[in-house]
């Protein structure tokens, strides 16, 4: 047997041994603390058998020569194995497991009929497993076995054992006190659930934290930065290159005077916003207002003393000129230092400037991204209106009014549920092209006015639960169908309408492929597509990207918190949960 498989066997044996030992200890603990009566004999048997199994396994494992093939670290190595295999092999193994179960069931079956059924099932599993194996071989898959070692130092081990002992003891003890069975189980469930929340919540936290990080915290060798810090700044009036606000095409900009032309005319160079940075234009000197620049606070060593000050100028050769703030003896002096010798002074805080910088990078004509918001709102409002109205009308027609051929038509409608949107994508594009709707939002929301099959289906299910008598009464009162619909039915089905509205909202907020195909001008893009465009253009700047993603997320999360009930009901009604 190769060293690799020996290692695998040894690992399994030792883990089996440890688990048996743990189980024995746990039962012993319960016997000792909980003092449950009536089952001592069984418990004692369990303890003895566990100890025996543990002893055998651990002894065997001890005698198997195991080498992980890698230099071992300090401490005592706990062996681990990890199988890396293509999913075809996973499938094959799963089928094998099921086949074995069925085989056992077939052998132990009581009636002939049962045995026949089990054998039939066995054959199916074997065939499916065979297919997986064929695919595995065909795709030239291979099973990789990784041999690993976790080094455990005596301190670590002691702490772990103590912790486990205390935890179990506390749980068992409280069980004895409360005399309520299942408390341990509940505690374990809570632990698992909280762990799940952490796993699912960490990406969220990472999104938020990254969006407030400075560039130096984005990539670090020390570890993940969870507490962002920001550069301290000091406002100062720059004498050498004063910063002004000016008006460019009706919008406020910040920048400096690049050149004095004649008289009061100057050539003004834009520094912010970024999307027109470097742009120069002529303007009247008197229209400028000076504002302070933000000097970065840095510290450095000067003659063995720590000096702190703020940068008033970045020289291009990599030096900075620092105006000293402390110690008081040097205050006000200007010292030239190499940038590398200075240490930025930072404090814990959020770098909100990521958000403003991100908005400034968006194309000039989008008004700092507000055009995106406007487009998305138009899209969402019109679609929600369209979906709700059309589903209401059509759903009412299909569920409450009788007309010849209704059921056949409804069956046709249901069958469209299975239709992948890709089939109609190109001809629909041609239709909207013919209508001259390319580069407008119409192709995205107009179709919602023609009722989606899913919403109608949903409404019909709901209509079924409303008694017919209501309508009959209104009919007798002489109501028209339209009036019955909006005066009698609408109040009854409001919750479903809310679900449809929310579902449509989410769908359109997320709509990516539609805008990708139809929209080409930045001012006409909705947020989801703009986000992707931004990623394409400034993909390297993760903090900015995360701030855009956060902004795109806030509205939906807010909606979720305010209308949670409808989200949850929506999932239960539609059966569309998770992704």
């Amino acid at each position, binding site marked *: 047997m190769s060293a690799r498989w020996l290692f695998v066997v040894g690992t399994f044996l030792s883990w089996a041994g440890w688990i048996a030992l743990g189980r024995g200890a746990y039962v012993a603990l319960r016997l000792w603390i909980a003092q449950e009566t009536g089952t001592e004999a069984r418990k004692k048997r369990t303890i003895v058998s566990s100890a025996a199994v543990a002893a055998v396994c651990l002894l065997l494992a001890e005698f198997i020569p195991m080498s992980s093939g890698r230099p071992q670290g300090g401490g005592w190595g706990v062996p681990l194995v*990890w199988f890396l295999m293509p999913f075809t092999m996973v499938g094959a193994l799963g089928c094998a497991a099921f086949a074995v179960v069925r085989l056992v069931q077939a052998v132990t079956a009581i009636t002939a009929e049962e045995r026949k059924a089990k054998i039939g099932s066995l054959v199916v599993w074997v065939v499916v497993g065979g297919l997986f194996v064929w695919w595995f071989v065909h795709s030239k898959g291979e099973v990789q076995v990784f041999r*690993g070692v*976790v080094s455990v130092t005596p301190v670590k081990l002691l702490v772990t054992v103590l912790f486990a002992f205390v935890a179990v003891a506390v749980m068992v003890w409280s069980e004895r006190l409360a005399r309520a069975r299942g408390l341990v189980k*509940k505690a374990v469930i809570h632990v698992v*659930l909280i762990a799940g*929340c952490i796993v*699912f919540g960490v990406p969220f936290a990472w999104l938020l934290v990254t969006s407030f990080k400075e560039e130096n915290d984005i*990539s670090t060798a020390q570890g993940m930065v969870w507490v962002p810090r920001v550069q301290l700044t000091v406002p100062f009036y720059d004498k050498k290159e004063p910063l002004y606000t000016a*008006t460019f095409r*009706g919008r*406020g900009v910040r920048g400096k005077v690049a050149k004095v032309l004649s008289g009061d005319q100057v050539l003004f160079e834009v520094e912010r916003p970024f999307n027109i940075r470097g742009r120069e234009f002529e303007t009247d000197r008197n229209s400028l207002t000076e504002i302070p620049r933000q000097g970065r606070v840095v510290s450095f060593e000067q003659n063995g003393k720590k000096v702190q000050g703020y940068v008033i100028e970045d020289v*291009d050769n990599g030096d900075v000129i620092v105006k000293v703030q402390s110690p008081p003896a040097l205050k006000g002096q200007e010292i030239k230092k190499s940038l590398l010798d200075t240490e930025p002074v930072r404090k814990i805080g959020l770098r*909100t*400037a990521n*958000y*403003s910088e991100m*908005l400034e990078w968006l*194309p000039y004509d989008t*008004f*700092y991204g507000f055009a995106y918001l406007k487009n998305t709102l138009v899209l969402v409002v019109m679609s929600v209106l369209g979906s709700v109205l*059309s589903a209401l009308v*059509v759903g009412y*027609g*299909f569920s409450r*009014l*009788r007309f*010849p051929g209704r059921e056949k*038509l409804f069956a046709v*409608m249901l069958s*469209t549920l*299975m*239709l*992948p*949107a890709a*089939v*109609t994508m*190109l*001809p629909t594009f*041609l239709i909207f092209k013919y209508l001259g709707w390319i*580069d407008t939002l119409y192709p995205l929301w107009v*179709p919602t006015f*023609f009722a989606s099959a899913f919403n109608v289906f949903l409404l019909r299910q709901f209509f079924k639960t409303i008694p017919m008598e209501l309508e009959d009464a209104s009919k007798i009162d002489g109501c028209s169908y339209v009036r019955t619909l909006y005066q009698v039915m609408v109040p009854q089905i409001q919750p479903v309408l809310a679900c449809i509205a929310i579902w449509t909202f*989410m769908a359109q907020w*997320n709509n990516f492929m539609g805008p990708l195909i*139809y929209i*080409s*001008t930045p001012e006409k893009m909705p947020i*989801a597509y703009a*986000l*992707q465009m931004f*990623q394409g253009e400034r993909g390297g700047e*993760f903090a900015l990207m995360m701030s855009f*993603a956060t902004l795109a997320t806030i509205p*939906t999360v807010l909606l979720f918190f305010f209308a949670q009930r409808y989200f*949850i009901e929506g*999932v239960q009604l539609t*059966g569309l*949960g*998770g*992704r």
Partner: protein
Amino acid sequence: MPNPALIIQAPRAICTPGVHIFVVSVTGRDRLRESKIEFEFDFGSLIAMTKTLRTVLVALAALCVCAVASGEGQTTDLVVWGMQLGPNDQGMDAVIRRFEESHPGVTVHMLGMGAGRMNPQKLMTAIVGGVPPDIVLQDRFSVPDWAHLGAFEPLDDLISRDEGKDANTPTAEQYYPAPWSECHYEGHQYGIPWMADTRILYWNRAVFRQKANDLRKAGLDPDRAPRTWSELLAYSKVLTEFNPDGTLKRAGFMPNFGNSWLYLYAFQNEASFMSPDGKTCTLNTPASREALQFMYDGYQICGGYANAEKFRASLRGNESDPFFTGQVAMKIDGDWIMPGFILYAPKLDFGVAPPPIPDDRYYKRGRFKDVKDRYITWTGGFCWAIPKGARHRDLAWEFIKHVTSTKMRMLEMSTFAGIERERGRPYVPRPTAQIETNKEEIAAFMPKTGNMRAASQLHIAMMPVARFRPSTFAGQRLWDEHVRATDMALLNVMSINDALQSGQDRVQDYLDEVNNRDSLPVADLTIPSVVGGAGFLLGVVLLIGWYKRQRLGKLARHEAKWGLIFVAPWVFGFVVLTLGPMLASLYLSFTQYNIFDAPHWTGMTNYTTMFGKDRELITKSFMNVLYLGGVGVPLGLVTGLATAMLLNAGVRGLRYYRTLFYLPNVVPGIASIILWLWILNADPSRGMMNWVWQHTLTQWFGTLPPAWIASEAWAKPALITMGLWGAAGGMILWLAGLKGIPNQLYEAASIDGASAIQQFWSITVPQLSPLIFFQTIIGGIGVLQTFDNVYVALNGQGTGPNDSLLVPVYYLFQHAFYYFKLGYASAIAWMIFLIALVVTGLQFLVAKKWVHYEVDS
């Protein structure tokens, strides 16, 4: 010019230092006839919440007004795509300002739009939709693609009109032959070259010196660069260093690092990818096989292509550029990297040389005996073109003449050079497509000494001996297939011959298809529309007849009338947006249709291609989806069900858990993908997942973190991981299902002594089986339509390493909007539809076996 008759400046708050200003101004133009609202909004920093709130309110108000009042200014907007003015484009900005000055009333809008680059989809939809930009800055090699479709305007008439009259008129004599002919197609000039780039070899002298002894030992001179391919490999072998775990510490030379592709090596080996008449693709010739073999050998020295790509994925840019840090000793790259040298590594000791060439070429042996130019390079670059249907054609031409004139190019450079000089950095001239401009810029800006002088001089000197990609309408296709073939061969998936041959076959098919198109009958739409229309009318008449024959009472008739009125919106939508398009799609799938011309009838060709020549990729795409669905859907179900079962155990705080677990579902799709791409970043010092991996699995097992999206094996697991984030939200549904299971069942089972596991398999699963069934179907159809995450992950380019992310809808999208093969795309669409039908049908069939329904319901 706008006449500001009325200016309302609503809250104009100039805040204290640090916080910024916002201005809402209503500017009336032309006596209230048109009004334009503009607002200024600058966050500065969010110091005071009140201020922010006020700002937001005002902005929202402005937004509302914006939405209501919109009007066109009296100015002419000249829209240019393909270039976004960035912080270092003051030169271009000056040129544009000059243009705006000399053309009063014209405003130039420069937009990036991904046009001109590798993503033709935006430009195509804009041209087809009748809303094209006035000018595009287009990658030259793809100009024939567009010209052939009739999507670009030929410029010959404009050139001959102005030649001699306007000194700025571009003519062939002013340009190097390569860039000029690259945008020449079938006797017409479609673009005016602007920038041009050349590729040369950069080598890090410091690394050479450090390894001088080893180099000498190998018989190599450490003071000069390699001149031939075999020398290059020999140098690389000495300079490459490995870490103990086999990963690269330093790469001597990675053939496709920097910018060379197979094209450069093939040009050097006198291979050409197209026959002179443009009818035959010659991707697979002995010469190009040799070139690819050279690349292969180059990567073998680095421990194989996969190893090198892993190394590349861990590299970073700017100051820590691997060439600056010595992690890469030699690379072939274009002139666009020179500013980076000045900015980030001004003191770097490096040398330049012409790209090494095949040994036979260097020694003028064999078939290279009579070759004129010893060293050659490859030039690419951009040109200005006018799309068909541009609203301001003459103005666009004026703009092109303006920006390409030597005077303006010099203005552009001197403006930027001035800024660079102010920053204390030298400005280094880069090659342009125009001979005169190159001369003038050398005279004006060439540094007197130094490495940058050598680099700049060499880049410009290589211009006359530069080759260019063949001018063919299949340029984009050829490019994509050459990339795919290179990847396949380097990854050892196929032999070099097979990889190139399969690429060649695909390009050839495309060429034949287009070349033969004129012999195909134009798909006449009259017959199908007459037949369809007649059928439709007949159907309507029959329906009305059938309806009339129904014996209905007066009341029932009234009800039926209203019922029909109520369902009419859906019927209309169904006919126009579902049934019609489906039939149209079916019809188109039997044609060749590039959207610019009328469709041509090809019969079953699209389908035979799909099952014949293109079978590999089609199969691959469906297999990828099968992987995503086969692993992703069950994992998603299990995650949701497990969460629901935990919550169903009667724990407190159900509501809070439910909210938290559902939350990932409300994150917009694109935002969540982008977040996960960040989490799955290959670099462990940035990507959270790989950081965790490095601190656990790497320490235990010694396995290195994967490159996720950038690696063949891990790209799909990455997508599945992204999807699983939202999977726990499915528990809401499962929870409802679990609550619906009668408790007596469990009680009875416990009394009979069934264990928890037995109860799960014999009660919970059968009771939930309708739900499981429904979820599998929904999940299956959803996975079959995977598109968004693939598109975002790949940024719309390529199909992932070894096509590992090629999925059917994405493949359809590529064919429709990148290659303009709407007929074939429609055939793929129908294939997707049929597969969806079959899969769903199968599920329904199998469902009878295992889905358990209560008897009465």
